[in-house]
């Protein structure tokens, strides 16, 4: 009998264009990537974004500064506390308010807890992206403990809105110090489990080492900051270069690698969790006494001028650029969001790798879509 050849209709010489997303588990939200494929090889990645564009920058122009804080939570919801801090710092800098040490120390501890819980979720979802469902349970199990601390002190778990211009919304809960110390002790014990599960895992290493390499020149040219940039050797830690809050009085290392591949983007975050715990250790016993907020005017008006403040979120450098015309609401607010910039380098990194590698590379960038769309 003659063999029948069924034409598939797909010429392998041509590029095949498919949609990945907007609803796709490994895009971590509503991100649509239009892929040009040659067989299984990715030739071009074109991100289509804007599915949850809410116009936060436009909204900011019609509300007051204390109100803006509640919008910044909704950008990078995993770094909510750090985003709040950016707005508070810029307002305090503009009004030349002196912030007591107590507030600075509490803010720093909360920022580092935020960073830890963000990296925990990163670890959980990155493991799941690569097929290790166990990671998701381990990661979320430990993250709950941080969220419980937030809940006790801030009243909410993720969207904390704990900072306000001039200080904090409320004082820390009496249990705060004890619970944070308990958590750090607990997490020091469980973090090696993370390493056992993923870091040394052969399958994981095969999927990540050497995949999606980003050179230092490209990292700077594309402006890739945060752990993703530092994995390429780009020294961009705002906490080191322009210390804000209490970062100038703690000792910690800036995690830097030269390889710039997916594995080191992952590993940089693991190391950052250890550094964050070191920072918390140095501060938690030395929270100075005093007021938790400075009395500010009921209506905050920034003097006419332009202000730029940057902070280090869990994903990179968040810049806030405010133009004030002297009114109670800003004339123009621009958020330089780290995810938006990091996403632009995705095409460069994923080119000539397989689709499955694209999932690993995208996962290693730790994208949070509301921060991209704003």
């Amino acid at each position, binding site marked *: 009998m003659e063999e029948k050849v069924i034409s598939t209709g797909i010429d392998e010489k041509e590029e095949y264009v498919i949609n990945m997303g907007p609803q796709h588990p490994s895009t971590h939200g509503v991100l649509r990537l239009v892929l040009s494929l040659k067989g299984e090889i990715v030739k071009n990645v074109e991100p289509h*974004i*804007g599915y949850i*564009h809410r*116009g936060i*920058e*436009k909204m900011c122009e*019609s509300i007051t500064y204390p109100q803006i804080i509640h919008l910044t939570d909704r950008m990078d919801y995993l770094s909510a506390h750090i985003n709040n801090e950016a707005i508070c710092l810029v307002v305090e800098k503009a009004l030349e308010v002196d912030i007591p040490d107590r507030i600075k120390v509490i803010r720093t501890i909360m920022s580092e807890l935020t960073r830890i819980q963000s990296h925990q979720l990163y670890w959980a979802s990155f493991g799941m992206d690569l097929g290790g469902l166990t990671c998701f349970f381990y990661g979320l199990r430990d993250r709950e403990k941080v969220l419980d601390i937030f809940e006790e002190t801030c009243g909410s778990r993720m969207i904390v809105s704990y900072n306000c211009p001039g200080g904090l919304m409320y004082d820390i809960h009496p249990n705060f110090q004890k619970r944070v110390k308990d958590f750090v002790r607990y997490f020091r014990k469980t973090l090696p489990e993370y390493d056992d599960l993923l870091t040394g895992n052969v399958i994981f290493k095969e999927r990540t080492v050497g995949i999606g390499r980003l050179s230092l020149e*490209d990292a*700077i*040219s*594309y*402006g890739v900051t945060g752990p993703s940039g530092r994995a390429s050797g*780009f*020294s*961009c830690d705002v906490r080191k*270069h322009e210390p804000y809050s209490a970062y100038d009085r703690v000792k910690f290392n800036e995690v830097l690698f030269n390889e710039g591949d997916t594995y080191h983007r992952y590993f940089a975050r693991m190391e950052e969790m250890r550094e964050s715990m070191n920072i918390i250790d140095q501060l938690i016993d030395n929270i100075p006494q005093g007021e938790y907020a400075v009395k500010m005017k009921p209506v905050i008006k920034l003097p006419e*001028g*332009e*202000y*730029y403040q*940057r902070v280090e979120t869990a994903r990179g*450098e968040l*810049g806030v*650029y405010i*133009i004030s015309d002297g009114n109670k609401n800003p004339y*123009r607010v*621009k958020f*330089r969001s780290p995810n*938006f*910039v990091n*996403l*632009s*380098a995705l095409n*460069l990194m994923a080119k000539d790798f397989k689709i499955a590698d694209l999932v690993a590379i995208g996962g290693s960038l730790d994208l949070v879509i509301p921060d991209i*769309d704003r």
Partner: protein
Amino acid sequence: MNKTELAEFIKSLEPECEVKEGKQFAEAAVPSTKLHSLAKSLKENDATAFDFLVCLSAVDWGQDIGVVYHLRSTKYSHMVVLKVRTADRQNPAFDSVTDIWMTADFHEREAFDLMGIRFKNHPDMRRLFLDSSWGFPLRKDYVDDVNIVTR
């Protein structure tokens, strides 16, 4: 370099610039025709080495419309602010800096999308977030009866 030295340096590179020492950074108002050459020389000059475009913001100043560039040097950690503006609100256009800093690609598309500023020589000048039927929402004269509440 500190603010004063940077301001003087930019003035010497491009005498048509209006430089001033701002509260935080040295600021330079650049004529739009000189923007690209100044940006290129600021990056390539060893004394300044501005290799990192931190932030690119489109701003509507009422009469004028323009772009603000925050540049940083990863070598010296100094920063400078460049500003270009044009009175042409119908078709504002500046030179793209995508060939100097790759990160400008997304930033300029965002500026085009939300403020309607075109960038010449940009490789892919399309809207980023919104549909092509939208206006340019970050402009001050943008009207939306439904979603913007005026008090």
